[in-house]
């Protein structure tokens, strides 16, 4: 077209970013890449290779190695060998290395941006303006955490060797999210990039080498799902960090169950994008573009469910369609496009299949009038209206540029629809009414909420989800705690199951000495009979039968969880209000000290002095959590924007707590206290051997203003009940402190709804020890952090 013709049409022309330097870099490696192990390019043990493809053109970019079990073993050995020295280098030394990496990443920013865009298909605008700057920012930020580690995380140490598996949607950014905190803290890593997108990870390996990072600190192993499995299953890895699909995350949870590996999972989502009638609708429409047409919608936290207040539905949809007409899809290296290519044909097929399903189910599909390029792997922006929460496309994660729109009438209904999902990753809330927006954000069950903005990320602000979107947070203070562990943890002795008492045949109960007591269960604020109608005999330390307790079963757990679900009052109560109740429990326990002491002597066989110490420690512990209730506070982050990000510590929900046999009163209080202080409702299984301290406790709960349903106790066979709790889809976390096999049982079963778990991995704590028995570690498990982004300005 001549200039005069363009002058008339005012079209955009091609605006290609050069791929020359990127192709030159690939050519310098002869288009073939080995594994990066122990600071060296290392040929894979098997000859199995695969090609990585530019999805915008279908052209082969390079040949990549598949690491097998032996390669992972070599990488793990290298990482293990390097770890101690890396840890010993100290925070300042590691900070210098991370700083050097951040600088080197910036010096290679354009090469990385182009490589990423070529390999993944995402627009160069995004890699250049979003991915790569965030990558550098992540290393700067974590250089800072390394520097401050001793002062900010005292009594913590690195976990050791961390295995990391990252997805293809933000290849280098996810690598940065994984590697920066891990190595800042003194861990060494083995990272596997996604099969579709290995190139920037390999380029990063080269940057590490050139930047003088000690050998073995970062190991990059490429491959497919089998490579990932080798990492997950390797016995000398201390932690697995995974970002990817919920399906794979679930398999990893099962595979690592009982292995003692720490785990963080950042999984799928179906995040709501809520527009209230008092929103700046034009800006909200633009927000939708950033929410679902960012990275072709292949974003775990994509705002894929548009919830519009009914009165503005038609207006918003009309504006949205007009906006969609203006979107441009094309080659990822074109600087004049909004959307690039879908990562691979298999993903394209998945999108097509779900869109077809949506149409079949009666939803109305709309796509702009223009067509996407015929060559390459493209899909147009797509909007579904006439969608109901029951529609498949409203529930399933599509992971493509497909938006489903629904309406709501009231803020309450918006929250209800938003939470009507198995996922709970992110939410975007649009309203010019600060009261409304700040009321809704905490009510959405998710890890990140954006007010009048969307898809904002920063190294200082934790990111991660709830429910089937995974657990753990990456970034910021909370993210560092996922790569560190308390120093005492590795030194804990093995858990010794309580000795099974031998029955003496004598019964210590006499109706004449004391009136016969029935030890029932405590559910919904009431003492209730067990569903089974069966009882279990309880023996004294000497083996005399001293009581019969209710044999709780599945249905009792179900009832207890239901009671917890129904009684939201405890969670809504103010922190001060909860503190009052915890102090009141302490007061009432203190008043009955003698009785509880006697019971401990009788059931556990400790001396009166020891029993008295345990009761006193329990009272003191309750005081600690009364104190903590209004002091374990949220943080306010300062990301680079005009605004604040509130890192709100929220209650997890219903927590199942399975108590150990040792110190039955103190261990129960140590676990129940923090959970209650933070506003959780609990279903607690007391010591199987010594449950009477718990059943005696009912009367204290009844006289201490504990909200009905906040504290439920089900006695019975520990692991039977633990399994039911771990299986239950409405239990959000299970804490297990019993024998090693139980940890495995709980972790395996938790995969059902991807609930959080906190297990002792067969180690025993000293409940009297202040570091092991109480404090912020407990409170951290009793809360989940939601980062609420609030940009402001008029």
């Amino acid at each position, binding site marked *: 077209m001549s200039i005069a013709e363009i002058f008339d049409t005012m*079209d955009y022309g091609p605006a290609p970013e050069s791929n020359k330097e990127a192709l030159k870099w690939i050519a310098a490696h002869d288009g073939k890449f080995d594994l990066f192990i122990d600071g060296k390019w290392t040929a894979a043990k098997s000859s199995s290779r695969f090609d990585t493809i530019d999805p915008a053109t279908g052209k082969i970019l390079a040949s990549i190695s598949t690491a097998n079990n032996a390669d992972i073993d070599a990488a793990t050995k290298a990482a293990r060998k390097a770890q101690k020295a890396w840890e010993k280098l100290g925070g300042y030394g590691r900070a210098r290395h991370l700083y050097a990496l951040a600088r080197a990443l910036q010096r290679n920013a354009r090469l990385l941006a182009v490589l990423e865009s070529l390999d993944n298909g995402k627009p160069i605008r995004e890699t250049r303006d979003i991915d790569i700057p965030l990558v550098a920012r992540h290393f700067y930020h974590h250089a800072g955490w390394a520097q401050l580690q001793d002062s900010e995380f005292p009594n913590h140490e690195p976990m050791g060797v961390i295995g990391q598996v990252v997805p293809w949607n933000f290849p280098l950014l996810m690598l940065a999210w994984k590697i920066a905190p891990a190595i800042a803290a003194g861990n060494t890593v083995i990272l596997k990039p996604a099969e579709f997108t290995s190139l920037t990870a390999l380029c990063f390996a080269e940057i590490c080498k050139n930047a003088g990072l000690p050998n073995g600190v970062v190991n990059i192993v490429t491959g497919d799902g089998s490579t990932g499995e080798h990492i997950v299953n390797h016995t000398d890895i201390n932690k697995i960090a995974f970002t990817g699909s919920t399906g794979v995350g679930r398999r990893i949870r099962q595979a690592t169950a009982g292995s003692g590996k720490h785990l963080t999972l950042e999984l799928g989502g179906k995040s709501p994008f809520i527009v209230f009638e008092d*929103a700046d609708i034009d800006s909200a429409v*633009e927000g939708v573009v950033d929410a679902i047409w960012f990275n072709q919608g292949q974003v775990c936290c994509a705002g894929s469910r548009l919830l519009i207040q009914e009165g503005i539905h038609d207006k918003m949809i009309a504006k949205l369609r007009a906006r969609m007409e203006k979107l441009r899809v094309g080659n990822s290296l074109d600087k004049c496009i909004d959307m690039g290519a879908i990562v691979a044909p298999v993903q394209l097929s998945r999108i097509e299949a779900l869109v077809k399903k949506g149409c079949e189910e009666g939803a109305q599909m709309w796509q702009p009038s223009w067509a996407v390029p015929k060559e390459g792997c493209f899909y147009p922006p797509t909007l579904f209206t006439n969608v109901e929460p029951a529609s498949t496309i409203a529930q399933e994660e599509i992971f493509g540029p497909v938006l489903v729109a629904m309406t709501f009438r009231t803020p309450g209904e918006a929250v209800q629809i938003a939470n009507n999902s198995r996922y709970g990753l992110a939410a975007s809330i649009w309203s*010019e009414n600060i009261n409304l927006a700040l009321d809704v954000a905490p009510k959405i069950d998710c890890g990140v909420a954006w007010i*009048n903005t969307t898809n904002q990320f920063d190294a200082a602000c934790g990111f991660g989800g709830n429910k089937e979107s995974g657990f753990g947070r990456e970034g910021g203070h909370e993210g560092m705690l996922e790569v560190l562990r308390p120093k005492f943890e590795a030194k804990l002795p093995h858990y010794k199951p309580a000795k099974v008492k031998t029955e003496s045949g004598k019964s210590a109960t006499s109706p004449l000495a004391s009136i016969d007591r029935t030890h029932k269960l405590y559910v919904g604020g009431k003492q209730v009979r067990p569903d089974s109608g069966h009882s279990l005999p309880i023996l004294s330390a000497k083996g005399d039968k001293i009581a019969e307790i209710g044999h709780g079963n599945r249905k009792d757990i179900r009832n207890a969880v239901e009671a917890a679900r129904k009684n939201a009052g405890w969670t809504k109560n103010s922190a001060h209000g909860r503190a009052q109740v915890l102090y009141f429990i302490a007061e009432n326990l203190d008043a009955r000290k003698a009785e509880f002491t006697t019971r401990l002597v009788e059931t556990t066989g400790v001396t009166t002095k020891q029993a008295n110490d345990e009761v006193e420690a329990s009272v003191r512990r309750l005081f600690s959590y009364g104190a903590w209730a209004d002091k374990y506070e949220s943080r306010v982050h300062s990301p680079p924007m005009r605004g604040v990000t509130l890192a709100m510590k929220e209650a997890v929900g219903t927590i199942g707590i399975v108590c150990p046999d040792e110190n039955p009163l103190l261990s129960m209080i140590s676990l129940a206290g923090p959970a209650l202080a933070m506003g959780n409702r609990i279903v607690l299984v007391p010591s199987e051997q010594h449950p009477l301290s718990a059943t005696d406790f009912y009367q204290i709960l009844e006289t201490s203003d504990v909200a009905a349903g906040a504290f439920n106790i089900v006695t019975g066979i520990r692991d039977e009940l633990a399994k039911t709790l771990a299986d239950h889809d409405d239990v959000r976390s299970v804490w297990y402190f019993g024998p090693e096999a139980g940890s495995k049982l709980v972790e395996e079963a938790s995969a059902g709804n991807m609930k959080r778990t906190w297990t002792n991995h067969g180690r025993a704590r000293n409940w009297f020890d202040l570091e092991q028995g109480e404090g912020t570690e407990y409170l951290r498990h009793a809360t989940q952090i939601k980062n609420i982004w609030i940009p402001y300005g008029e």
Partner: protein
Amino acid sequence: MATISKLAPTSHAHARNPGLPFDAEAVEDIHVNLSAVERRASTLGGRRSVKKDYQAAWLLKAISCIDLTTLSGDDTAGRVKRLCAKARQPVRPDILESLGMSERGLTTGAVCVYHTMVETAVKALDGSGIPVAAVSTGFPAGLSPFELRVKEIEASVAAGAEEIDIVITRGHALTGNWQALYNEIKAFREACGEAHLKTILGTGELVTLRNVAKASMIAMMAGADFIKTSTGKESVNATLPVSLVMIRAIRAYEEMTGIKIGYKPAGGVSAAKDVLGYQFMMKEELGTEWLQPDLFRIGASSLLGDIERQLEHHVTGRYSADFRHPMA
């Protein structure tokens, strides 16, 4: 593909805005989120890019939208004549020739002067088809007696101005007296008669985007043919966020009435790179029609010089210098 051998005369391709009766609700319902607007404004430049011939064509188009302006206390007839000569021939003929544009009769969109210079400008532009725009109504503060402001418009129209750039009483917007603002602009529009009314909101002095959005809507309801950011005399003049808000108001007005209103950023647009950002915004938020001079003007004095240098660079491949291009 629409081809035009000559540039169409400006300002007359669309139905004029008849205005709407005053409706307080139309402004009460306006919500603008500053951070979101800034985000869109700051990222749009990264989403769009024109290179090579496309860039040259877009910059030539920008020239056709420039209101070549002189608004100084020391303006004289000689200075205005020189400006008009530049408006007639904004780019060196040999450069236009190389770009294949010499037959197009490229001129700037208008020449913009104070009332006292209107006659001189009209004479100097005779036969060129280039309209003369007069800043009016006590420009730049707009606080002279109301009757005098109306009379100033009438005098400029009588002197041959085809476009009148009025300033609003910013106080009406700052105090939320939308009825008074509406009445004022409506009276100015009536005084314009056939001349087109360009309403300067003084956005730098309205301060908040919410005020800008509301004042934009009132100006259009009162019959403005164009809405314009600023006088060029404020401490903050045209910005992309302000433009986005005004452009979206234009879109909303079109959704309400079907009438197309023009947009004119003024002050602060001095580099070729900047003007492309405004053009992208016009095309993306409103459409290609809004890239033409009947719906888009740029109030600028030094922008043309930068565009000329860019165009010469496009032709020669060498970076240009300002003395190589005839001054205005």
